[in-house]
Every structure is written in C-alpha cells, then in structure tokens.
C-alpha cells in the first residue's frame, strides 16, 4: 500500500482540506467583528433602498404608460390565490367524497389502511 504522506494526490487533497479550514476560520474571525457587520449592513441597506426606489419609479412609469404595475399584479395574484385556495378545498372535498364512495363499494382506493396495531420490537421480543 502506498505511503499517503508521499502520495502527491493525497497531499493535494489534504492541502485543499487544510486551506478550506484555514480560510473558513480566518473569515469567521473577520466576520465576527462589528466593523464587518457595519459594512455589510450598510451595503445591504443601500441595495435594498435602491431596489425600493427603482420599484417606486417603475410603478410611476408603468402607470404613465397605462400598463399594470407590480402592486396591481400582486393584487390580481391575491385574488387568484384566493380562488386557487377555494378550488383546492373543493378538490379535497371531492377527493374525500370519492374515497368514501369507493370505500363503501370496496374498490382500490378504499383498500383498507394498515391496522394501527404495530408494537415495538422490545414489547414482544421481535421486529414486526
């Protein structure tokens, strides 16, 4: 069996692993500083702010072009979601009625569910 300490592939893999650990540890230390938090949140805050301003501007532009804005589309989506929800309820109800009718006829969907009688192996000495 080849000695791993002299195997260039194993050495390379080990080096990658060590570099990963070292860099992660170093970065974690840097990221634990308040300065890091301050900079990241300033950048993040500015990005979010710019995103909002751009959104507002686009909204005005779309209104002037007589096109639906995002908020109008969102309100449409809300209505659609409510309709979707009601459809799902109807579907679930139909599914339930269908299952009940098949159960009474003894069909496949009404195949009996397994009995809830299982005991743990320790209770009767063997795995059921």
């Amino acid at each position: 069996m080849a000695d791993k300490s002299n195997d260039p592939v194993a050495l390379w893999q080990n080096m990658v692993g060590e570099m990963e650990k070292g860099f992660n540890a170093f970065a974690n230390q840097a990221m634990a500083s308040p300065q890091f938090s301050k900079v990241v949140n300033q950048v993040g805050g500015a990005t979010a702010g710019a995103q909002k301003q751009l959104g507002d501007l686009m909204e005005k532009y779309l209104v002037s072009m007589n096109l639906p804005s995002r908020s109008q589309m969102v309100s449409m989506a809300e209505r659609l979601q409510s309709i979707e929800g009601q459809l799902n309820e109807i579907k679930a109800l139909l599914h339930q009625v269908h299952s009940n009718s098949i159960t009474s006829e003894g069909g496949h969907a009404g195949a009996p569910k397994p009995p809830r009688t299982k005991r743990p192996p320790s209770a009767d000495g063997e795995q059921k």
Partner: protein
Amino acid sequence: MNATPGIDLAAIPERIQSEVQRAIQRSIKGVEYLSSSGPSLGSTPKDILHVRGTMNLYHYRPVADEIYRIPILIVMATTNRGYILDLVPGQSFIEFLLKRGYDVYMLDWAAPKPEEKSLRMEDYVLDFIPDCVRQVQRDSGETDVTVIGYCFGGVLSLLYGSIFPDGPMKNLICFTTPVDFREMKLFQNFADRRYFDVDHLIDSVGNVPPEMILSSFEMLRPASRAASQVQLWENIWNDEYVKSYRMFDRWATDTLPLAGEYFRTITRDLMWDNKLYNDEMSVGGRKADISKIKVPILHAVAEHDHIVPYDAAKPLIPKIGSADKQEVILKGGHVSLVAGANAIKRLWPKLDSWLGERSI
C-alpha cells in the same frame, strides 16, 4: 523495491496509470455531469392532503402491513425544502420510517408569494401547524400526533407545543433546534441591531429573498463552496460521489424566501431579544414558555453543526418541562445529522427505538 524510505517505486507506474485513467474518466464524466439533471429527489409515493398558500401537507403512503397507532407530523424548516428527508431510496428518512411501520405526514413549505409578505409568526404557529394537526387527526382517525421538527421547524414545533401543552401533541422530536440565539454568533453579528435595519429591509423587499438566505448560510463557511467544487472535480469519476454531491448541493441551494413579517419577528424576538431562551416569548399574544411542554422529547444535535452550534441547541433539554427527555449528540453537521451516512447508521435507528415504544 523501496529505494527511498516511504516511497514504493514499484507502485509508481500503477499509480500513474490509475491517475491517467481517472483523468480520462473525469473528462467523460464531466461532460455527462453538465448534460444530465441529477437524481430524482423526494420520490417516495405521497398524496397531497392539504394546500394553503405557502403550506403543503403531504401524506406518505404506508408500506408496512401494520403501523403504529400514533401518526407522525414532520414540520420542515421554513428556509428549506422537505426532500432533504426523502433524498433517494436507501437514503431517505421518510422511507426508513415507513418501512419501520410509521404513518408519516409532512408539513412542507412552498416559497411565500409577494402577497404573503404579511404572514406572521402567529400564522405559522397558531394557524398552519394546528390546521395540519387537525388534518392528520382527520385522515388517520387518531387524536394523538407525534411532531418532528427540523431546525427552525423545531422552533415552530416548540412554540406550538408550549402554547398547546394539553395536546394533541403526544411526543416531540427536534433535530438541531436552536433555543439560545445568542450562541448563533455569526448570525448574531450579521443581524447586529446597531447596524442591521430589519424594518428598512422588510419594507423595501417584502419577503426576504432566497439569495440572501443562501448567502448568509454560505458566509458561515465561505471557502467551502469553492473547496467542494475542487473535490467534485477530483471525484467526478466516482458515480456515487457525484450522485451524493448533486443531491446535497441541489437541496442546499434550493433555499426558500422568508415572509417579511415572520422574518421581522425572528430578528426582533429571537435574534435580538432572545425571548425563547429568556422565557419571554409570546405568539399572537399567547405566552410560549417551553417549560410548559410535558410530553416525551428527543433532541438530536450534531457535534459539528456550523449553522446551529451546539451551544445554541444545548439549553433545550434543561429548559423543557418534560420528565421523559433525552438529548442525543452525534457526529456530523447540520445536514449530515439527518440525511448523511451517519444518519442511516446512528440517528434513524436511535429514533426508531425511542419513538416505537411511545407510538402505541
């Protein structure tokens, strides 16, 4: 023949040949990798029992001839998809539970839509979970339910259990569930209240974008993505390695957005004020004190969890009110604890032996 100590010269030609073969395989498999879509995940047969907005309730079809009386409801973390618990046959926690005779339901989350930005913590704890529990009761015909919560799904389950301590939750299992949020040190620093303006963020973006969630997870180990890609290239000749890499990579990058108001509460109440740990948490005006939970509880934590460090998860068992309580510390990380090779060998059998006798 060993001319130099430690170097087996006779093995060198063989090693070179093996490396050349692997290099050829890498090129062939590399093309295959780029042109294929990876294994199909979450394929254990299931029925959608209930869908409402971001909430999906699945029922997995039982496979055993006889099942335990008490059904299981798994509550997934709101940041990630539930298929981490149902990767592929042979590496699926769900499949394991079904084969061991459990009746399994899962509350999985879809990405909240922009119009769902106003979902609050109370929608999750006082509406979605109780709604799913009722559906499970109706479908199974049983009153009692075992709840299993993964990561933040565990936090939601704890909040639910502390507000409804008289049932119907019969047993609680938490995987890597944080309680002391001060100990999530890097997340604490990212969310430092002196610099992080959560209101500005939520008011600007509505829902927290999944890219932001993913970046915050990846920032915990910034070199790991690059290193994992180097390792992938080295092992691309190995089909099993590639399959496993693709499964975990796909799941890890398939992050969900978080509803804005919900995220605001997480930041203010948990990250900043640490209310769960300080026994000051309330949801929708109802006190959520985890010492009120009296049901049997098992908490599984990972020794090398970089997302929920052990110190953040450790206070759960001491703080909970149950007499029948147990913590299991296993080797591994946040994900490998529940879905890796160690999970198959250690966590799943341990969970089965603990839960089986409490499911009758």
